[in-house]
């Protein structure tokens, strides 16, 4: 059984082909990191998986259902998306922003039910965002905004969580906090996770499977994170990689930067 499957995803916009024949399967409870250089089409792939872009070829299935057959709300009840950036131009409070994440379950006119409140409480508890609830989203720092976006995605209570570069442009402490949070979302909240990133160490920390995307095609087929070879990484990013283990035995990689 698969939670999410992509078959031959192709996307062309005008004369440009952004994605060509991308396929993979992700079982329930799995973690898939899509890595690759800038401009490889990772974020576009994520949008196709989320139903925000319609591929020009191929198909995405969520469980047993083809993605395009799901209504907007149905889709949002199964897939929650954490975009890299959101338009935080309207000064909603964080609490108001989180409440909007319950839209797929409430619709237009029904009030917050006990289930809605419980979902919001769980998301607030697991992200530790309670001190920020009365702040307006326009005043949040980059790290706090990312936390609010993830909290909203968790409050949406969709089993599948798609994240676009969740640690990009964050300082080390915030990056670590976000990674721990994603691990918790997977281990404790049973979320199936698809993560788009060019931070290979993020993928290694979370575990699961990695695929590499380059120029819109799969350049590195699905590989378990602990079997990821330096040569494959080097070929994907066009720069040699090195690795070492920290005192806990965890493997870390880095590009070899020569002067």
């Amino acid at each position, binding site marked *: 059984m698969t939670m999410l499957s992509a078959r031959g995803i192709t996307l062309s916009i*005008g004369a440009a082909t952004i994605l060509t024949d991308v396929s993979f399967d992700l079982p329930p409870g799995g973690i898939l990191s899509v890595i690759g250089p800038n401009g490889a089409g990772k974020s576009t792939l994520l*949008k196709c998986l*989320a*139903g*925000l872009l319609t591929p020009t070829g191929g198909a995405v299935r969520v469980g047993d259902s083809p993605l395009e057959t799901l*209504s*907007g*709300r*149905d*889709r*949002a*009840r199964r*897939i*929650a*998306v954490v*975009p890299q950036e*959101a*338009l935080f*131009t*309207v*000064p*909603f*409070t964080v609490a*108001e*922003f989180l409440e*909007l*994440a319950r*839209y*797929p379950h*409430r619709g*237009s*006119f029904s009030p917050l039910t006990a289930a809605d409140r419980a979902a919001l409480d769980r998301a607030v508890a697991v992200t530790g965002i309670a001190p920020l609830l009365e702040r307006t989203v326009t005043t949040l720092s980059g790290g706090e905004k990312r936390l609010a976006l993830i909290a909203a995605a968790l409050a*949406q209570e969709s089993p599948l969580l798609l994240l676009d570069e969740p640690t990009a442009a964050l300082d080390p402490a915030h990056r670590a906090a976000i990674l721990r949070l994603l691990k918790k979302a997977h281990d404790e909240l049973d979320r199936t996770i698809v993560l788009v990133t060019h931070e290979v160490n993020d993928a290694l920390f979370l575990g699961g499977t990695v695929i590499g995307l380059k120029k819109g095609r799969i350049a590195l087929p699905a590989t378990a994170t602990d079997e990821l070879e330096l040569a494959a990484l080097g070929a994907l990013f066009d720069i040699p990689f090195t690795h070492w283990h920290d005192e806990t035995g965890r493997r870390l990689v880095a590009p070899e930067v020569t002067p």
Partner: protein
Amino acid sequence: MSRTVRLILIALVALILCAVAPFIGPSFADDETMRRVLYTLRLPRAGAAFAAGAILALCGMVFQSLFRNDLASPYTLGVSGGASFGAAVAILLGLPGLFGIPGVPLAAFCGALVSVAVVWRLSLVSYRFGSQTMLLAGVAVGFFFSGLTVLVQYLADYSHSYRILHWLMGSLDSAGSGELLKLAPFVPVVCLAALFHRELDLMSLGEETSAARGLDPKKMSLILFALTSLAVAGVVAVTGPIGFVGLMAPHIARMLVGPSHRLLGPATFFTGGALLVLCDTCARILIAPAEIPVGVITALLGGPFFLWLLLRRDR
């Protein structure tokens, strides 16, 4: 003070203002004359002013949310340009009325709907249906129709040209129970748009975020544009283009009750209504027995007041 309490206060102030406004102005010693002036002139006029202001304000709020642009107003899609052209042609040619509706408002209503339809069609031509495309298309179409209106005015003789100019200034000076009745059906139309408060909240977060929450942003904006355009066309046809209320009232309401449309909708409704009643009362009494077009008052009072609010907020 909680935001709900503020909303209740706004509603109270608005209702008190509406009740008091008809009693402001020259009084007549004769009780019978006074009663007739109150009941057949000033009261329906205050009602018409409230309805027009409330509709314009709610349409402005919806447009500001859909376009995610603080400068959006009910006339952003070129509605006033189209309506003005329709009215100018009807005045010049003396077009007859239909179904008991006089020619000028009818032509203005049609002109408004034509301009919105043109903008809508233009926005569909572009690859990505984007709100920015619509915004720019609206500005362009508005200018185009303004050009045509000036041309009609230039071709018209003195008396027609004066009537066109008077219409273009936007006015409630002839508003009575007939105008109130013509405006009334558009109040539920625009209130229906404001009922989608969660959708408006989501859409103000951007198309991608709203789609990720399960909303169909294209379908929703089509519904909201259809409702608001109909309502704006209705108001413009009856009163002419009265500016500033639709831009200002949502901002004033936002400063008082915050950006969440659940409270913002009703707050904008009462603020817009009260604002136009206030401006119309000034228009009536400032140089009584003569009148100033209310559009002049909304701009002259509204502009500086709005600037004061903005600067006060940023301090």
